[in-house]
């Protein structure tokens, strides 16, 4: 015998998130309208108070959203928000001469080069609650598994995606850059093509 398991009550809402107002560049006001796609609310109003343990959305290997709730266990944070390191920062080289630094171990004609990282403009990026694609999340693809999936992070190779579902395709935004300048391109387009398969590829051919 075992006790009857009572299912937990689930609460659903059909409430549409209301637009909210924010201030962007130099005091310019903007009305932000939240949108819900596949259960994920984009452009939601930020919480008034934060403690660093707010839920965030991860993507599984198919590209389906999974909510992660950070927890502090011991001295470590489990399911912590992703750290993007310097992937989305702009790097610039600053040259400093001896006259500017007056370092005791520099020659008078020597120059010191320093890499300076500038944070990206997160005015619109911050409205996306889903984990962003970075090169460390690329996977290997191809028959031998030796080709990088750049610039895609999801969906992974040869996964079965079902009809009537929504999957998030994610790519590294700084992958495509203009050849003459280091600026990131502004627009991309996604295309889907059928791939003709032989019976052997499907694994149905007799040996």
């Amino acid at each position, binding site marked *: 015998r075992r006790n009857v398991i009572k299912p937990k009550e689930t609460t659903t809402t059909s409430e549409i998130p209301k637009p909210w107002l924010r201030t962007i560049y130099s005091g310019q006001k903007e009305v932000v309208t939240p949108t819900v796609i*596949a259960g994920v609310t984009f452009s939601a109003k930020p919480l008034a108070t934060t403690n660093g343990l707010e839920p965030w959305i991860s993507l599984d290997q198919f590209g389906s959203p999974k909510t992660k709730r950070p927890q502090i266990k011991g001295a470590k944070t489990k399911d912590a928000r992703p750290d993007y390191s310097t992937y989305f920062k702009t790097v610039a080289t600053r040259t400093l001469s001896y006259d500017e630094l007056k370092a005791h171990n520099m020659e008078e004609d020597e120059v010191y080069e320093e890499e300076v990282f500038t944070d990206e403009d997160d005015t619109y990026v911050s409205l996306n609650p889903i984990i962003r694609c970075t090169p460390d999340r690329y996977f290997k693809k191809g028959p031998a598994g030796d080709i990088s999936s750049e*610039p*895609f992070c999801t969906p992974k190779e*040869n996964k*079965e*995606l079902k009809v009537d579902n929504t999957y998030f395709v994610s790519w590294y935004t700084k992958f495509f850059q203009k050849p003459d300048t280091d600026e990131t391109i502004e627009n991309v387009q996604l295309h889907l093509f059928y*791939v003709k398969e032989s019976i052997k590829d499907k694994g149905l051919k007799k040996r």
Partner: protein
Amino acid sequence: DLKAAFFSSGWLKNVDGIYPLELTADFLDGAYDRKVLLAIQPDNIRDDEFNPWEHYVLFRMIMGPRVAKTTKQQKALQDAGISDDTWYYVALSIPTVVVIACVAMYFFLYLNRSHRDIHNVKDFAINQRRRVLGKFKDFKKYKKINNRPYSELPTHTKKTGKQN
């Protein structure tokens, strides 16, 4: 060739880095599953210069789970009173035909019972069991053996001179 693409998202803001791809049954074009190539085209590459195999991901698009499970579509059809019962009629018809044949055979034998004489068959069978020595009840040990009198043992082999 971009004309071969069955779906194009249109120009998206690259800074978003994400696109919700909603798969519909139209994408499968009548098939149950298809292998699909997902390619990305930056705006600095023209359509005629675009090579889908440069930056791509392959995945398989399927209609539903591969297990034999009632799908939402089937449930909707059942709710509407529409069901495909062809297999059900086939499964029922086979035992029905067998039962009808057995009943017909029974009546055929019943009606012809007065015209049937199988005593020869019966006598032959009984005589087969009586080919034992003595009374049948005394030879329980050998009841399954078609025993014969000693005089009937085979005598077809010729004896050699040495044996004589």
